[in-house]
């Protein structure tokens, strides 16, 4: 058995900078992997644990599935919004409950969605928006925006927006309200399809630990 397995058994994990990375590191530390050179403000992008068994690297969140699909990273943690917007050929092993938020349709309070009238939708998540409006047979036109999506209805570029809402304060300050939540978004633990098999012995304890942590927090 042993000779069939990769001799290079370091496990590579791709994480999005910020809260998700922080949380993932806590879980890894509980498993005995220590990252002495990690600190929140460090500009380093790659950290290896003391025992050289796990290496994490920090990337922009839309890039996490890319690294995992290509096998450069064995595991990754990424929001469901990104997986839905850019589907990747990976295993979605677990729903981690951190980073909970909602994908919503938002607009002015007097906005009415009429089925006989074409709607103009601005979003960073054009695919998610299209999938949703197609599923209710709502004719719509989509405008992709890279950020500050709230501006679109304010300036008359679109009738409504589809975006992630955490607290809703940005919407409020621009006079918009949530019209309808369409999806719950949480973080996902994803795995490369090959690594899950070839590095199963290293990966399995990590999956199990994440599962326990998620369960504990739900109770």
């Amino acid at each position, binding site marked *: 058995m042993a*000779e*069939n397995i990769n001799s290079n058994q370091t496990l590579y994990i791709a994480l999005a900078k910020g809260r998700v990375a922080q949380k993932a590191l806590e879980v890894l530390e509980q498993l005995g992997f220590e990252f002495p050179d990690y600190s929140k403000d460090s500009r380093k992008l790659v950290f290896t644990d003391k025992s050289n068994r796990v290496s994490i690297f920090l990337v922009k969140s839309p890039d996490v599935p890319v690294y995992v699909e290509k*096998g*450069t990273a064995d595991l990754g943690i990424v929001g469901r919004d990104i997986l839905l917007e850019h589907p990747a050929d990976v*295993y*979605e092993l677990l729903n981690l409950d951190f980073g909970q938020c909602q994908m919503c349709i938002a607009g002015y309070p007097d906005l009415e969605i009429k089925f006989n009238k074409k709607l103009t939708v601005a979003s960073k998540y054009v695919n998610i928006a299209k999938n949703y409006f197609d599923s209710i047979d709502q004719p719509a036109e989509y405008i992709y925006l890279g950020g500050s999506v709230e501006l679109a209805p304010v300036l008359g570029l679109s009738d409504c927006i589809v975006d992630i809402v955490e607290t809703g304060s940005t919407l409020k300050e621009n006079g918009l309200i949530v019209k309808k939540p369409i999806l719950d978004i949480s973080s996902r633990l994803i795995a*490369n399809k*090959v690594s899950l*098999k070839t590095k199963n012995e290293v990966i399995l304890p990590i999956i199990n630990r994440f599962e326990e942590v998620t369960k504990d927090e739900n109770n």
Partner: protein
Amino acid sequence: MLANYTIDGFENIKYQGFGQLKYIEERLANLFEKYGYCQVEIPTFENYEFYSSDEAINRNDLFKFISNSGKVLALKPDATLPITRIAAINHHDPEEVVKFSYQTNIYKDFSSPDSSKKETTQSGIEYFGNSDPSCDGEIITLALASLELFGIKNIHIDLGHVGFINALLDELYLNKNERDHLFNLIENKNIGDIKEFLETKENISEEYKKIILKLPRLYGKPEDVFKEMETLAVTPKMRTVLERLQSVYNYLCSVGAKDYIHLDIGFTNRMSYYTGIIFKAYLDGVGESILSGGRYDSLSAKFGIDRPACGFSLDLLLLLEYLNNHNLFPDNSDPKIIILYPEEEREKAFSLCSDYRNNGRSAEMFVLNHSPEIVTNRLLKNPHYKNSEFYLLKDNNLTLWQKT
């Protein structure tokens, strides 16, 4: 000025790559021949309807053409379907055993971005007319042999069966959308979303829900997975699948392939015509499977001959890359002979070159219209001449000028 004339998604293979590909092709063809497979050539085009009819593949991923007579054709996205058609046309007795091997280019992922690979070279085998587990075993053994042939060590084979999950899903009274959705979730090992999906389904019994949640974790060492499957196989169909997998595994143990085999009950192959066991082979550090195959017993019936079949295909370009990265190509190429000659001695140069060629060497001649330095340097700009011996011809004498 250099303009960009590259066609995205299609590779140019040249110099050593071409020789290496030929080396791979020849050794594989030779191996398959020794196992009794007879090589066939497949047309580039296939009838579009064969692929589009029962969603064997996503239609948007096909390269489509319309023939003079209005027929829709597609660049073939796989070799199995055309070979099944060829076997059906030429061998009419369903009892007949037919063993074909092939090497061909396939075209895929038309709807993916330009940069993704659209054309690749495949080699493989198809075995018709034998439904016994020992046939599955032979196919997997040969798949393994075709990788070991090149000195590859770290091979990992995932063995599965399309029937186990399907037999369970048959019991669940789901509509097609729900069924496809659940199947996808199981395939992606997405336990969280499976839970959410099952919570909305009140007509599925708790017992079945528990089994479904265990399906994504049915992978790993065969002995362990078989034990787990024993407890989950609640229908006769599921038991049949389990027994089938066990007898294929026993075959593989008896031919010494035990250590390479891992089970995974929750995966599918790109093409949807598989009906029995399926398998994929992975290599170290390669993010996608290099070889895949399985049993497709009902495909041939589409062409009028009801005949069981099993086979696999191997991605040669991926193999080429892997062998290069791991220095697994033998280094036995003789240096090229380059003869630089003054114009008045052309006759002698030609006869010397002919002698070399007749002895199986590669020999080229260049006239010295400049100094030997200039002529040599111009040639060395091309990597083709990296491993060469340059000779100068003067007064009927050949002297070594430079060796690279």
